[in-house]
């Protein structure tokens, strides 16, 4: 049965959904008759402000940072601003795409959002000035009121409708000083989350909605050879079984019937060429690529490493390896698809990449983009995984078409972890040439592994096979370190396990490779690890300040209780410089992190507590990857597809303390969501190396 909604019923249903989606106290919801002043901002007659954010809120706090930027520039209290993710449109795109990634949320949108708020202010003041016969230059907005000096003319809502009819000034004057930038404000989305309100896509409901749960094939792909759904169809509540390109979906009146039905499905997949692929074969493939004779693309070839090696008193060499990592957001992929009676399509989805998802929606539905309304919900975590849900989106549309009803399509945890788009596995061979007094004469790094960009962009091929993937050498190719001679090359080694951006992308593995190898060099040369890094960065005052700040805050070099050691790491990514010191011990062979000290130079801080939370979360996620995370491939499929086998860090392994030092150097504003992650793993590994004298050249630290 297709819900034959009247227009009124349709609007009412959408309206109630949007209220649920907005995740804010009702008191902050804009009232009726909100006037759009710019693409980003609407002002209601009661003075409340609606901000259409170009970013997805997935816990990184950009909706709060955006509200802060707008509230301060416009002149309203933060509590007057309600934020929702915009629908994809030109004003919300960066480089042609509406997408939340690359730690761009604040640094890319600070300018446009302050401009939008300044435009709105100018329009409101122009309207007020005209109405009261005053000079607009003498007026200002504060606390949501238009003021002429100390005299209050009225709330901004009184001028909103008239202001909306006025021209939008192209270059409005910004406030000389933003009153909120750099302060700690409470997150706008937290109260609803603490009350358990239905803010996630998985919480939404619609009249007539049925639930579909997927059972899919191995990560290496392929269509099912046989689907036996007899047991499934016997489950009470099951409506239908829909064949999908790589599996099937069970549709039922409720989630539990669909889950039971999906578990009862018998699916056979043909034994394809990848049916024997496993983690050992992938590791061997990367080792082969490390030793490949032909010239690999070399983004760095400074000086003559061969000569440095020939002149060296000592050469140190080591091989490092990391596994595939899953993003593992707590909310697995799900979305709601409703074909409407008027020929349109409405989709609710937890997406980080609205335009990419729209591409999947239009391709699967055959509808033009203007017939599609895409609502971005808040996300139960993203970390890059929700940048690419083309298959999951396509499958949801196939199911909705097949059953001709609005469908809530779900992946169980096993598919969320089992369908790939992982942080690539990668290896590196590093070689250091040391002079007779232990000084570094040169460094050579070859990395080998999958090309994330080729997987992620497919079927487009922005890189040729065997070419250079910049993300595979991220934070190595552009390092500020001066090693003397420096040779960096990359041997592409591709496997049928799709890879995608994972929080901090290539900086995660490369930071580990380089920073841990540097500690091996320091040990061999008899140099303090901080001193070695200070030497390699002696030419760069900004980087030295980051190192010195973290060292001082962490008490580097000061005595520690017996059985404890410190490790340091420094990684630059996403426009920010980050150094961390981990203080760790071993208890029955298990690492224990007592304290992490972070120094982050992100240029400027906008939303201070939000930035601090991102540092804390990045550190914990980095430590999680270091300690226990690895996707195991067995028989061409992911073997560890739930949290009993994919080991995320739990509270007992979390640091007792994380101390954060922001360095506001005034340089170009950098990212905050990703840069704190990469130094965490090498800083921990270096602490353990200092403790035991044994390097850890393969992650995770804890054996499976």
């Amino acid at each position, binding site marked *: 049965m297709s819900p034959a909604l009247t227009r009124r019923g349709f609007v009412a249903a959408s309206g109630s959904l949007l209220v649920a989606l907005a995740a804010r106290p009702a008191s902050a919801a804009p009232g009726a008759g909100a006037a759009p002043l710019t693409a980003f901002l609407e002002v209601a007659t009661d003075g409340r402000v609606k901000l259409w954010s170009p970013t997805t809120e997935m816990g990184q706090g950009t909706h709060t940072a955006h509200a802060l930027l707008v509230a301060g520039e416009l002149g309203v209290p933060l509590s007057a601003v309600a934020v929702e993710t915009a629908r994809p449109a030109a004003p919300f795109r960066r480089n042609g795409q509406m997408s939340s990634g690359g730690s761009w949320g604040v640094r890319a949108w600070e300018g446009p959002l302050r401009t939008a708020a300044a435009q709105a202010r100018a329009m409101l003041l122009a309207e007020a000035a005209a109405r009261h016969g005053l000079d607009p230059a003498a007026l200002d907005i504060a606390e949501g009121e238009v003021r002429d000096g100390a005299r209050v003319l009225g709330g901004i809502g009184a001028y909103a409708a008239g202001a909306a009819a006025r021209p939008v000034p192209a270059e409005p004057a910004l406030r000389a000083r933003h009153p909120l930038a750099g302060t700690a404000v409470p997150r706008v989305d937290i109260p609803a989350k603490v009350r358990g309100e239905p803010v996630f896509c998985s919480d939404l409901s619609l009249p007539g909605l049925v639930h579909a749960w997927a059972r899919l094939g191995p990560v290496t792909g392929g269509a099912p050879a046989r689907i036996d759904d007899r047991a499934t169809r016997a489950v009470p509540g099951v409506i239908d079984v829909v064949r999908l390109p790589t599996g099937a979906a069970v549709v039922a009146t409720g989630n539990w019937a669909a889950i039971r039905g999906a578990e009862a499905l018998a699916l056979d997949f043909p034994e394809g060429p990848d049916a024997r692929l496993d983690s050992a074969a992938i590791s061997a493939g990367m080792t082969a690529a490390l030793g490949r004779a032909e010239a690999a693309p070399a983004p760095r070839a400074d000086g003559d490493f061969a000569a440095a090696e020939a002149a060296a008193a000592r050469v140190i060499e080591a091989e490092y390896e990391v596994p595939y990592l899953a993003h593992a957001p707590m909310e697995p992929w799900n979305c709601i698809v409703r074909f409407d009676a008027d020929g349109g399509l409405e989709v609710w989805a937890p997406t980080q990449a609205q335009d990419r998802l729209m591409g999947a929606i239009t391709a699967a539905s055959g509808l033009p983009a203007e017939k599609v309304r895409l609502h971005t919900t808040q996300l139960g975590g993203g970390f890059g995984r929700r940048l690419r849900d083309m298959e999951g989106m396509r499958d949801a549309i196939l199911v909705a078409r097949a059953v001709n009803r609005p469908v809530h399509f779900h992946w169980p*945890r096993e598919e969320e972890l089992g369908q790939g788009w992982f942080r690539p596995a990668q290896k590196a061979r590093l070689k250091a040439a040391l002079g007779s007094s232990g000084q570094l004469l040169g460094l050579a790094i070859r990395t080998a592994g999958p090309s994330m960009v080729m997987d992620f962009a497919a079927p487009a091929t922005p890189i040729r096979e065997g070419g250079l993937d910049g993300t595979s050498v991220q934070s190595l190719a552009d390092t500020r370190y001066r090693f003397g001679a420096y040779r960096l090359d990359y041997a592409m080694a591709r496997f049928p396990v799709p890879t995608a951006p994972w929080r901090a992308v290539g900086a995660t593995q490369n930071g580990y490779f380089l920073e841990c190898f540097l500690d091996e060099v320091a040990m061999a040369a008899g140099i303090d690890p901080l001193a070695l890094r200070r030497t390699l960065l002696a030419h760069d005052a900004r980087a030295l300040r980051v190192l010195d700040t973290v060292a001082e805050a962490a008490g580097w070099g000061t005595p520690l209780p017996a059985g404890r050691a410190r490790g340091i790491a420094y990684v630059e990514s996403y426009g920010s410089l980050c150094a961390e010191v981990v203080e760790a011990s071993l208890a029955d062979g298990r690492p224990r992190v007592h304290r992490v000290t972070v120094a982050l130079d992100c240029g400027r801080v906008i939303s201070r507590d939000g930035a601090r939370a991102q540092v804390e979360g990045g550190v914990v996620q980095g430590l999680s990857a270091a300690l226990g995370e690895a996707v195991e491939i067995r028989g061409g499929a992911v073997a560890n597809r739930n949290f009993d086998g994919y080991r995320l860090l739990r509270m007992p392994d979390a640091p007792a303390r994380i101390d954060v030092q922001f360095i506001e150097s005034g340089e170009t504003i950098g990212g905050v969501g990703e840069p704190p992650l990469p130094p965490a793993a090498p800083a921990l590994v270096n602490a353990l190396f200092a403790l035991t004298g044994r390097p850890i050249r393969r992650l995770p630290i804890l054996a499976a």
Partner: protein
Amino acid sequence: MARLSVNGRQREVEAAPDMPLLWVLRDLLDLKGARYGCGIGQCGACTVLVDGGAVRSCITPVETVAGREVTTIEGLGGDHPLQKAWIAAQVPQCGYCQAGQILQAAALLAETPKPTDAEIDAAMAGNLCRCGTYLRIRAAIRAAAGSAA
């Protein structure tokens, strides 16, 4: 037909006896605060209280809670000391796991009003947070334990 008491209200639902409490709450009672994360009791996103103790509702058949008192995040009312502490400490990031974290903490404080850090870690070890808010969760539990005194 199953009878249970949820947040102080007697409820009757058309559910098979083996239907997990999670789906009874979410699909039949429209209480969405307990969330699906793993389906096997490994992540704690579905945590609710049954007679004051924390259970994983995704693996708790509804028949086992007949005649017992179920409390979900919606039943804490919003002004619970833990909810206030969670806001004061600005704990959640994505927030998906936080209802389960708060209820797990409520069970801890009911049993151990002044937990040590080690007791907090042990009690909370079954609740995953991918965003990494563990330090703020600890701080919020400590604060709530102090304020409840």
